[in-house]
């Protein structure tokens, strides 16, 4: 059993997403520690990519800020090693296929595992293409996280049967970003997942308020929040850790 299971062992999980190196890597480290201390159950560390096609404007801009600051994959690995000295919550990378592929998939997975990472989310690698990554991830004890979307329909069972770690349920059509309403019937998607696997499901895309997080977690095992946190970081910069900690505590309490 991977460490990711532990994230879902303390009630409904709250999962924040943080772009590494926005505004700089020291601040990212402080934000991760603040989020973990405030009750985050699992943390997604975004490795910036020049052309993040699944992201809305808020996270796109965080990627640009991080890359302009000189962040590289190797520097993100250094950050993970540094965090693992004291941060014990499960950590997964969230990035794009080319970041992993260009580093050398095997070299990437080996380094990530040695740095203490628990999994990888690649939003541009669907079920049919996971063969490039899945076996190598498994070999190094990393979970390649599967995503299902409101359009997945007849694909949910197939994806769930081979999923590991947790299943990332994409709440809405479109890219990442805050939404005023989420109208997808998440409960129906979770029921199909449940018929095919017992691994946990967390819902992401569009969640920003405690009420939304509570509603999503009520029909699944947890809530994932990215853009709302990135907005706090964009607003407060180096002073963001305290603000993010406060936000995470509030969101976790609502679940």
């Amino acid at each position: 059993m991977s460490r990711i299971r532990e994230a879902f062992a303390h009630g409904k999980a709250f999962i924040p997403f943080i772009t590494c190196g926005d505004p700089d890597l020291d601040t990212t480290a402080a934000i991760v520690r603040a989020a973990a201390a405030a009750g985050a159950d699992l943390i997604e560390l975004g490795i910036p990519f020049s052309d993040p096609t699944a992201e809305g404007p808020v996270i796109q801009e965080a990627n640009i800020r991080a890359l302009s600051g000189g962040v590289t994959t190797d520097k993100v690995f250094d950050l993970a090693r540094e965090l693992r000295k004291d941060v014990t919550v499960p950590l997964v990378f969230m990035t794009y296929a080319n970041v992993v592929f260009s580093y050398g998939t095997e070299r990437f997975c080996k380094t990530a595992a040695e740095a203490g990472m628990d999994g990888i989310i690649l939003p541009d690698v669907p079920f049919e293409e996971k063969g490039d990554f899945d076996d190598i991830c498994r070999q190094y004890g990393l979970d390649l996280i599967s995503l299902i979307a409101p359009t997945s329909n007849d694909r949910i069972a197939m994806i769930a049967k081979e999923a590991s770690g947790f299943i990332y349920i994409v709440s809405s059509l479109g890219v990442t970003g805050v939404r005023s309403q989420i109208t997808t019937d998440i409960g129906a998607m979770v029921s199909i997942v449940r018929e095919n696997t017992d691994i946990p499901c967390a819902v992401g895309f569009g969640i920003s308020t405690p009420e939304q997080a509570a509603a999503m977690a009520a029909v699944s095992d947890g809530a994932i929040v990215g853009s709302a946190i990135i907005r706090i970081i964009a607003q407060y910069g180096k002073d963001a850790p305290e603000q993010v900690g406060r936000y995470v505590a509030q969101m976790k309490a609502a679940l």
Partner: protein
Amino acid sequence: MAQSRGRFGIHGGQYIPETLMNAVIELEEAYNHYKNDPEFNRELTDLFNNYAGRPSRLYFAKKMTEDLGGAKIYLKREDLNHTGAHKINNVLGQALLARKMGKTRLIAETGAGQHGVATATAAALMGMECVVFMGEEDTKRQALNVYRMKLLGSDVIPVKTGTATLKDAVSEAMREWTNRISDTHYCLGSVMGPHPFPTIVRDFQSVISKEIKEQVLAAEGRLPDAVMACVGGGSNAIGTFYHFIEDEGVQLIGCEAAGRGVDTWETAATVATGKLGIFHGMKSYFCQDEYGQIAPVYSISAGLDYPGIGPEHAWLHDIGRAQYVPITDEQAVEAFEYLSRMEGIIPAIESAHAVAYARELAPKMRKDQILVITISGRGDKDCAAIARYRGEDISE
């Protein structure tokens, strides 16, 4: 475990968000049905012939042949198509397919604006809604085409992210597609992106080589020794190559945009300077840094200003069947001016990249050899930019 689909050797595939998977599967199923449907093919041929003006001419460039003193040069005149470029071939096919699928809205990316204009044209013809994404930088370089698209009833969305050029327009069109799928078809403009686009676009563009073959056989009684075309994503090039791939005596040559040179960062020559990667839905060659960040490429030609190349070209390169050569801005501009004066044909600056290499290659070939250059589009849209390149400040 489900198999990866749409491979050309190791290239291709479907590296896209799960949200789009059923959309591309539905597209593949619809295409496989309609490509063999006599009614669909009758309608498409009718549009090609009576609306787009096909077949396009294969013109013997007598003065250019004499001037270069080598191979006999023929020009495949895709510039004479309705809307002024080869892009209409693909767009008519995809718009017809989308309509059969019950879609009422087309979205598209565009670089130089030729694909955007073609998509806006097909949308007007078929009574569909149309939104075109265009890098903000390109909306400035190609202001006339922005106006044409609006005139045709389309919305043009300037894309400000990244380098504000073609790759960012593709990213933004993909994002829009994940947002609105049920009534919308993404009319991708080149032989790139996730399967089935590289195959669909190739098939619709393969009319170019089908006609070249018939026309050159009628004129010369034999196949050409070489066919060449410019390559960005590579749709007019694959269209030019396709029916000659099995004819091993026919050399296939793609001309990439080297920008200010392949030894500079200001280049878009993917085969010459890129490496294997995964981006925009496909595995292929991409200009990128050591960490896989996609390079901010550059070319004077907005239509070739793309950091990748279609997966079938990557495969033709791997197996040595096609050859890809880099052509600089300066060479392309000289060829633009050369063909204008020599034959009275103003080629698109994209197509001028192929003309430039023909000027090097033809003199090295024998007089009994035959070289076909695809003139993918006409150059009216480029006149103001080329004038500025030459230091002449004219307004459009």
